[in-house]
């Protein structure tokens, strides 16, 4: 059994899916992010002045790109895997000799592709508003890759447990969005009172946004080592959970 062909098949199916409906998947983030730039960057940002030694628009660009990556990686896998469950075409894979890790890797890979593609689109859109500087391209690549993997895994676990389409919108609405907005996208956590700085330390998105911002601007509220350790911890934990759930057939096999 050639697992690489099975992996490519799942990946190809996932990429075909989100590119086939590009108006729903690739265009909205570009529009949303343009609005953020216009409102927070140009209109409000010009009155805020500098943050972390950079003008406000430059400061929020990495966070906004990362926000798009997080949202799209998560929602791609959550909606695609849940749709496959709902239409029961997930059975196509379950009856085939596809190892569980290939199913996980295929769906997560698809989510990462969409997250990173949307990240690229948003980056291109942001060039219309601000000159982007690169401090360390490898940190940028590593952070965006690992973060998209983390949230794609999260989306997969959400879809495994989901019993209705409502179930795949609850976590993005009530957990993911608040964590993202409070994750230092629009501000440096050093501006917060000490107590809230401490609270922010338990928000994993703080580490992702800051590591990503470091790649662009060379500034971060947290150390890079800590940031990558936190991301690594979440990837290992979520991957393990996803594997256990699929192996046991939770939500998939009766």
């Amino acid at each position, binding site marked *: 059994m050639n697992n690489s062909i099975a992996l490519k098949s799942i990946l190809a199916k996932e990429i075909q899916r989100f590119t086939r409906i590009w108006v729903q998947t690739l265009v909205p983030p570009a529009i949303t992010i343009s609005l953020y730039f216009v409102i927070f960057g140009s209109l409000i940002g010009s009155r805020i002045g500098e943050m972390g030694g950079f003008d406000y628009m430059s400061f929020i660009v990495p966070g906004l790109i990362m926000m798009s990556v997080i949202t799209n990686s998560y929602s791609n896998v959550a909606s695609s895997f849940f749709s496959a469950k709902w239409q029961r075409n997930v059975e196509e894979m379950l*009856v085939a000799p596809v*190892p569980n890790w290939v199913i996980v890797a295929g769906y997560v890979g698809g989510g990462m592709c969409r997250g990173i593609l949307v990240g690229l689109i948003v980056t291109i859109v942001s060039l219309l508003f601000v000159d982007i500087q690169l401090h360390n391209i490898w940190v940028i690549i590593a952070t965006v890759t690992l973060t998209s993997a983390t949230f794609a895994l999260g989306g997969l676990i959400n879809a495994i447990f989901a019993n209705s389409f409502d179930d795949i919108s609850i976590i993005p609405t009530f957990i993911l969005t608040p964590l993202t907005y409070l994750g230092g996208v629009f501000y440096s956590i050093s501006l917060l009172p000490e107590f809230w700085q401490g609270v922010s330390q338990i928000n994993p998105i703080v580490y992702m946004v800051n590591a990503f911002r470091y790649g662009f601007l060379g500034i971060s509220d947290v150390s890079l080592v800590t940031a990558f350790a936190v991301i690594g911890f979440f990837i290992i934990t979520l991957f393990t959970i996803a594997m256990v759930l699929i192996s046991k057939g939770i939500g998939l096999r009766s």
Partner: protein
Amino acid sequence: MTYALEISALEKTYKGGFQALKGIDLTVKQGDFFALLGPNGAGKSTSIGVITSLVNKTAGQVKVFGYDIDTDLEKAKSFIGLVPQEFNFSQFEPLVNILVNQAGYYGVSKLVALQRAEKYLKQLELWDKRDEPARALSGGMKRRLMIARALMHEPQMLILDEPTAGVDIELRRSMWDFLRELNEQGITIILTTHYLEEAEMLCRNIAIIDGGEIVEDTSMKKLLAQLDVETFVFDLQLNLTLDVLTQFAEQSSSIAYRIIDDHTLEVDLNKSQNLNQVFDQLNAANIEVLSMRNKSNRLEALFVSLINKKSSATQTKPQSTVVGAN
């Protein structure tokens, strides 16, 4: 001998406590055309679900071509092609993509998969629709798409769970021909169906499942030999009258004729009687036979009697009654 399928003491109890399979034993020989029949809720789809790993078993053992699904699941799966009861492909994907992706899950390269997709889509008369999304297909076309999909990795055993449900007669017969061809090529076929005529026409061996238990497991020939009475319908020459037929029926001893209309007779024959006697009597009365056929599906009568026998046996068990009452 390695069987295509060996099931022993298979049990499945669902979360709510419903016991769908109560320790069934079953073997299917390689190259067989096997029917698994039973009323709704008898355990057919659960059995198929366990074999194909869509349902987790509670106890027992399942081997596919000698490979135990507990220890060699991936190997066992590679032998099976499944045509499920309900449409379970992505409605939005083009047919070719559905087939090529499915082949990919079995490690078939894209080049080979495209060739096979063309072959099976042409054989199943879906080639013209290859680039259309699956939702654009009619019900019969969707059924054929599922057969094509199940064949993409060229399995040695094809399991079809009511493949002709809702399919018109013409299409059903062409699907029967296609399945016969596959079986002649050496593919073991396991079929569940509600059309008992289908099982009788296609299958060599048969198991009947009811209430999670196998109530009969034998060859189709042996099963049909259990029939005590068969009903035949005779279409007669058109220039007869009801009076002539009534007179003939009254004069004929030993065989009970029923007059349906002025040119149709029905007759029930038991094992001690044969058709020659009927023809002799009709010849003697100068009544010409234009054609003759079995009245109803013979298997249907047996199926009903076996299921009824089992349900009356269950009703007489005091323990079962108590459990049911609880």
